[in-house]
C-alpha cells in the first residue's frame, strides 16, 4: 500500500532522516517510535510532502507520489496533525466538511449526497454529531481532536498518517481516539502510519513498530521484537523494564528511575513480628516485593504489612474478601499496603525463626493445621468439599531477588513443607497415604530488594538452602505444636 525506499530528507541541506525503507500493507498499523529529535515527525512530513525529500522514493499503490497532484494525493492519504490553534471560528460540521475538499472539483463544485454521507458518517463514528453546529473553539481539547479525526476520516483516504495524535489528551481520550482509529483500520482496511511518543500506547495499538535513532531505522518489527529492555534502553538512553500486558500479548514498558541510592538499607528481623490470639502480623519499615497466594492482595506486589488472621473453623461468609478487608481496616491496617491470610489454627502456635546465611538472613513463619491433610497424588477421583486445613507459610528474605528467584523460592518452600509432613508421618485420612499438604495451604515469599543480589533460590543455592531448611524446621515444629494442642501427643 505504502512503500518507502531509501528515503532521505529534512529541513536544510543535511538530511535529518536517511536510509529509510519500509513497506506497510493494507489494513496494517505501523507505529513510528524514537526519542526526541530522532526524526520521526520529519519522516512523516516527508512522506506527506510537507518537507522535501532529497533521495529515495515514496510509492502509494505502486505509483510514485510525484505522479499525484496535491488533490489526488489527499484522496489517497489523510493526515491527522497534533492539536493546533485556529484564528477564526468554524463550526464542527464546517470543519469536518473540509475533509471533502479533495473530492470536490469544478467551478461551483456543489455539495453532493456522497459528501454529506461521508461527513455524517465520520461525525457519527467519532461521536461529534451532537456538536455539529458548535463553534470548534469552545470544545475541550479531547473533543477538538475528535473533530479533526472526523475531518481526516471524511477524507475517506485508504492511508491515514497520524503525528502524535494523543498529545495533550488524558488517558480516556487517548484510548477513545486510538480505539476509533484501530477499529476503523480493521473494519475498512485503512492503512495507518502513526508517530508515537508513548511506547506503551504504540505497543498496544500497532501491528508493527519502527524504532528510529538519529534519523535512521534502529529496528522495525513486531512490538514484542522492538519493545525489549535492551533495544529501548539503548535507543532512548533510559533504564526500562518490559513486562507483559495483563490482557494482551503485547509488551509494556516501565521506567526504572535512578532512585536506588536514595533507598536506605533496611532489614526485617524476627522481632518485628507480633503475635496475638487474633492474628500474627509483620509490619516492615518499608514495602517488600511480595508474591503470595493470600486472601487479600494475592499475586505480585509491594506490601509492608502482613497479617495471618485467626478465624473460627466454622467461619463461613459469602464475601470472604470484603469481610476480611473490613477486619484488616478495623485492626488498623492500610488495605493497599497489606497482604492478608486466614487460618483456623491458634495463631499463638506460630513458629517464627530467623535463619542467618552468608548473604543475610531469611525469616520463616509457619502456622500449621493438618486436620484436612491431603495426598496430592490421590485427589483426582475425589469428590469432596474444600475445607479449611491450612498450612500458611511466610518466607521473608533480606536480599534482592529477580522474579525467577521468587518462583524458585516457592518451589523450594513447598518441597520442604511436603518433606516435613512426610517426616511427621501426616496421613491423608481418606487414603491412608502420606499427605503432601492440606487442601487450602497458602504461601508467601517477600523480599526487601536491598542488600545482596540473589539470582537463584533452588535447593542448593545459598538462599535455597536457608529457605528449605527453615521451612522444613518451622513446619515440623508447627505440626508438633498442633498435635500437642489437639492432645494427640504428650
Amino acid at each position: 500500500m505504502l512503500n518507502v525506499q531509501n528515503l532521505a530528507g529534512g529541513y536544510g541541506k543535511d538530511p535529518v532522516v536517511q536510509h529509510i525503507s519500509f513497506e506497510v500493507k493494507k489494513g496494517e498499523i505501523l507505529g513510528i517510535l524514537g526519542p526526541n529529535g530522532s526524526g520521526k515527525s520529519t519522516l512523516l512530513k516527508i512522506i506527506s510532502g510537507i518537507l522535501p525529500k532529497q533521495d529515495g522514493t515514496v510509492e502509494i499503490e505502486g505509483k510514485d507520489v510525484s505522479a499525484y497532484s496535491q488533490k489526488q494525493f489527499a484522496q489517497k492519504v489523510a493526515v491527522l496533525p497534533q492539536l493546533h490553534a485556529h484564528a477564526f471560528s468554524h463550526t464542527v460540521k464546517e470543519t469536518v466538511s473540509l475533509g471533502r475538499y479533495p473530492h470536490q472539483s469544478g467551478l461551483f463544485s456543489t455539495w453532493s449526497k456522497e459528501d454529506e454521507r461521508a461527513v455524517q458518517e465520520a461525525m457519527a463514528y467519532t461521536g461529534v454529531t451532537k456538536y455539529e453546529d458548535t463553534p470548534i473553539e469552545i470544545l475541550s481539547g479531547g473533543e477538538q481532536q475528535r473533530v479533526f479525526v472526523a475531518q481526516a476520516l471524511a477524507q475517506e483516504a485508504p492511508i491515514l498518517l497520524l503525528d502524535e495524535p494523543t498529545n495533550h489528551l488524558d488517558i480516556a481520550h487517548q484510548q477513545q481516539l486510538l480505539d476509533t482509529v484501530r477499529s476503523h483500520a480493521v473494519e475498512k482496511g485503512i492503512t495507518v502510519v502513526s508517530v508515537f511518543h508513548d511506547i506503551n500506547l504504540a505497543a498496544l495499538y500497532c501491528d508493527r513498530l519502527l524504532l528510529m535513532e538519529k534519523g535512521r531505522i534502529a529496528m522495525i518489527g513486531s512490538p514484542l521484537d522492538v519493545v525489549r529492555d535492551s533495544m529501548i534502553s539503548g535507543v532512548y538512553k533510559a533504564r526500562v523494564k518490559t513486562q507483559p500486558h495483563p490482557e494482551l500479548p503485547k509488551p509494556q514498558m516501565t521506567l526504572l528511575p535512578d532512585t536506588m541510592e536514595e533507598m536506605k538499607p533496611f532489614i526485617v528481623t524476627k522481632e518485628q513480628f507480633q503475635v496475638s490470639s487474633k492474628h500474627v502480623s509483620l509490619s516492615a519499615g518499608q514495602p517488600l516485593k511480595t508474591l503470595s497466594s493470600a486472601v487479600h492482595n494475592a499475586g505480585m506486589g509491594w506490601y509492608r504489612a502482613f497479617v495471618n488472621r485467626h478465624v473460627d473453623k466454622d467461619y463461613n461468609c459469602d464475601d470472604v474478601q470484603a469481610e476480611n478487608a473490613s477486619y484488616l481496616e478495623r485492626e488498623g491496617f492500610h488495605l493497599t499496603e497489606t497482604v492478608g491470610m486466614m487460618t483456623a489454627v491458634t495463631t499463638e502456635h506460630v513458629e517464627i525463626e530467623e535463619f542467618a546465611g552468608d548473604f543475610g538472613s531469611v525469616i520463616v513463619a509457619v502456622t500449621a493445621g493438618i486436620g484436612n491433610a491431603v495426598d496430592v497424588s490421590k485427589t483426582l477421583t475425589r469428590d469432596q468439599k474444600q475445607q479449611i486445613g491450612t498450612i500458611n507459610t511466610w518466607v521473608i528474605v533480606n536480599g534482592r531477588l529477580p522474579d525467577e528467584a521468587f518462583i524458585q523460592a516457592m518451589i523450594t518452600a513447598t518441597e520442604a513443607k511436603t518433606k516435613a509432613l512426610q517426616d511427621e508421618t501426616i496421613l491423608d485420612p481418606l487414603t491412608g497415604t502420606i499427605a503432601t499438604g492440606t487442601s487450602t495451604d497458602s504461601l508467601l515469599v517477600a523480599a526487601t530488594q536491598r542488600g545482596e543480589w540473589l539470582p537463584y533460590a533452588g535447593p542448593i543455592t545459598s538462599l535455597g538452602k536457608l529457605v528449605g531448611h527453615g521451612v522444613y524446621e518451622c513446619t515440623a515444629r508447627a505440626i508438633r505444636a498442633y498435635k500437642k494442642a489437639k492432645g494427640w501427643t504428650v
Partner: protein
Amino acid sequence: MNKTGIAYIVSAATLVVAVWLGVSIGTVKVPLSTFWDSTDTTATNILWKIRMPRVILAGLVGASLAIAGAAFQGLLKNPLADPYTLGVSSGASVGAVVTLFFGLSIPMLGTYTLPIFSMVGAALTMFLVLGFARLVDRSMKMETIILTGIIFGSFLGSVLSLMIALTGEELRQIIGWLLGSVSMRGWKYIVMVLPFVVIGSFILWLNRRELNAMLFGEERAHHLGVNVRRRKFMILIGGSILTGSAVAVSGTIGFVGLVVPHMTRLLWGSDHRHLLTLSFLNGATLLIICDLIARTIISPSELPVGVITSFIGAPVFAYIFYRQRRKGAI
C-alpha cells in the same frame, strides 16, 4: 429558510435600500419615479449623471476593500489584517501623490493620469512585495508576507510623508485625496475600475474553499489537498488587484476592509464560501451609506468619506461585538 439564505437576502436587501437612499437623498430630492419617468430633466440628470455613478463607485470600492480584507484576514490567519497590510495601497498612494505633487498630466490620459499612475504604483508594489517575500523565503510563509508588507508599507509611507512635508499649495489636495473620496468621478472611473473588481473578486471567489482550509494553517491545508503555494499566490494577487484599483479611484478609505469582514463573520459565521460574497455586499452597503452621510451631514460642504467610515463603523462594530460576546457568554 436556513441561516445562509437569510444572510444573502438581508445583505442584498440592505444594499438595495442603501442604493435607493444614496440616489434619492441630497440637496435635491430625487423621487423613485425618476427611474422610469424622465420628464423631470433636472432630477434625471442628477440621478444618472451625478448620484448614480457616485453611489456605484462607492459600492464598488466598498465591496472591493471588504472582500479583499476578508480574504487577507483568512489567508494570513490574522484578525488585524486588512487590504492595506500588504503595502499595495501605499504604492497606489505614492503613485497618486506623485501625480499631485508634480502636477503631472499626461496629454493622452488627461484627468485619468492620477488613477492610472496610482494603479501602476500599486502593481509595482505588489510585484516587489511578492518578489521580495519569495526571495526571502521560497515557501512564502504568512509571517514573511506580513513582514514584507510592513517593510514596503513603511518605506512608501515615509516617501508619502516626505512629499507632504515638502509640498506647499497642493497640501489640501493631497490630504483630501489620502483621506478618500468618491465624489465627482463619473461613469468613466466606474468603467476603469469595474474590470479589476470583477477579475479580483472572481479570483478570490475561486479560492473560497481553499481559504477555509488555510484557516487551519498551511500544513493542514496541504494535507487536505490544497496546492498551498499556488492558491496563496492567487489570493494575494486577487486581493492586491482589488485593493490597488480601489485606492487608485478613491484614495485610502480606512476601516471598511478591516471591519466589514469581522461584522459579517460575527453575524453569519466564517465559512468563506459565503463570507466572501456577503462581505462584498455588506462592504458596498457600508460605503454607500457612509458616503451619503459624508456629503449630507454638513451640507452643502462635504466630508472625506474615510472620516465617516471610521466614525460610523467603529460604534456599529462595537455594538455587534458586544452583543455577540454577551450571547456567547450566556
